[in-house]
């Protein structure tokens, strides 16, 4: 809908100050890769970008530079059908960068990339953002989003669960103290100790997860010792984005 592919049936929206009812006014300043990279298999990566550059009225002189920027400088002349999934993904990102966009929309940009490629894409997106490009990433990989995002819109079943700064979201979450004992029986005792002290606690993945400030870990350790439990792990930490998502949606 944001890219003018689907007609809105109601509501309003703006991109770069223009209504989404007139995508032709903002799309020349928007780069996008959605639903995975789609190109002509019989054309080379470079020629595929030339087609899109010609179509959008951009100079084809930029194409080789973009291929090098995404690590495809050496394979630009190979046909698209010979590319690996990661190479296709890189070409999709290069195509999205063709208009030198003010807004970049990427759907699962690290899909199919090797760990090195993922690092490179993260660095590329960060440098684009630092240079003033708004980078809009949609992904199911919450750990990935946690690493690259400044702002977050969290959706569940089509409804907005959270919108705002990533730091605000994480700071609003209760810290968690993760504790492990020697046996299953110890976990039940630890759970009881935490609950008696007025903290919400659950047993998950072979450990007790207690909501409470990091400072309470000292009291918790002492109480466990007094109860005859030797802790094998006691870790105060902030919940990650995935845990926060489940906490907010109540799914787990």
């Amino acid at each position, binding site marked *: 809908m944001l890219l*003018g592919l689907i007609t809105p049936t109601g509501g309003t929206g703006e991109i770069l100050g223009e209504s989404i009812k007139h995508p032709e006014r903002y799309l020349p300043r928007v780069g996008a890769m959605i639903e995975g990279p789609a190109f002509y298999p*019989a054309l080379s990566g470079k020629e595929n970008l030339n087609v899109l550059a010609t*179509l*959008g009225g951009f100079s084809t002189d930029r194409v080789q530079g973009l291929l090098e920027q995404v690590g495809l400088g050496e394979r630009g002349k190979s046909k698209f059908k010979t590319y690996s999934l990661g190479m296709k993904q890189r070409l999709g990102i290069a195509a999205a960068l063709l208009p030198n966009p003010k807004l970049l929309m990427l759907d699962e940009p690290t899909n199919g990339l090797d760990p090195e490629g993922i690092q490179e894409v993260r660095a590329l997106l960060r440098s684009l953002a630092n240079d003033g490009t708004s980078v809009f990433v949609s992904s199911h990989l919450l750990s990935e989003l946690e690493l690259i995002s400044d702002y977050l819109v969290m959706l569940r079943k089509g409804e907005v669960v959270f919108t705002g700064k990533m730091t605000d979201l994480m700071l609003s979450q209760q810290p968690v103290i993760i504790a492990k004992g020697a046996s299953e029986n110890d976990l039940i005792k630890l759970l009881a100790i935490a609950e008696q002290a007025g903290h919400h606690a659950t047993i998950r993945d072979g450990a007790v997860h207690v909501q409470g400030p990091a400072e309470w870990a000292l009291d918790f350790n002492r109480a466990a010792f007094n109860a005859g439990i030797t802790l094998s792990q006691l870790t105060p930490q902030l919940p990650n984005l995935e845990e926060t998502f489940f906490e907010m949606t109540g799914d787990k």
Partner: protein
Amino acid sequence: MWNVAFAELRKLRRPTLFFGTMGAVVFFSALFSSLLFILIDSPQGNSDRGRVVGREVLGLATGGVQGFTSVGGFLGIIALCVFAAQTAQEYTYGTLRNLLVRQPGRLRILLGKFVAMKLFALVMIVLSAIVSIGASVILAPGAEVSTDLWFGADGRHAIFTTFVNVTISVIGFGTVGMVLGLLLRSPISAISLGVLWLLIVENLLVAVKNSWQSWLPGSQLSAIASGGSASGPVSGAIEYSHALLIGGIYVAVGATIASFLFVRRDVAN
């Protein structure tokens, strides 16, 4: 629109498509024209569907373009396949999304693609004309056919008229292919349906009732290529103006419906 046309030309010039198509055009143009002269004395005929085109006909001012006229319908089939494939592949590859993001004006996309494919078809037609007339010139002396009138004023007029008629016909066939590509959104389905209809269904219908030939789209477009006289053992003549009108209506209605759907339809995948 021109940006779309130039972008489309980049796709159309890829070697396998361009040289493959032009190779087929050269081969069949040479074949159709050669058979006219090589089989000139054959009792089974020397033209399409067993028609006999004798020395006296080939010696006329229009004799030099007989082969070109015969291959016109075949060029139409090639154009239908190319137009259908180039249009429908945008759906199957998912590249339509890219096109619409870079050029949100959907009618501009259609017009640009159409212009580029017309240019491609024009190259096909020029090449076919050169090969078929060239083959006729080379083979005519051996078949004892006079070429004296072929390049006189009347002959040049015949070449020009045939070129225009074949061009209109080929563009018509191509537009039908594009319409099928837009409606069916699959190259295989679009080409299969188009070729099946033109080569089999229409012939069966005409065999059942000869008068239907005057109202079927493929017959009108073929009649335009041959200047208004459709050929074949079961056919009657179709007037050029009638073929132009009915064929034009088919193409215009199909193009309007397909364009409307293309502009209005959401692109969700």
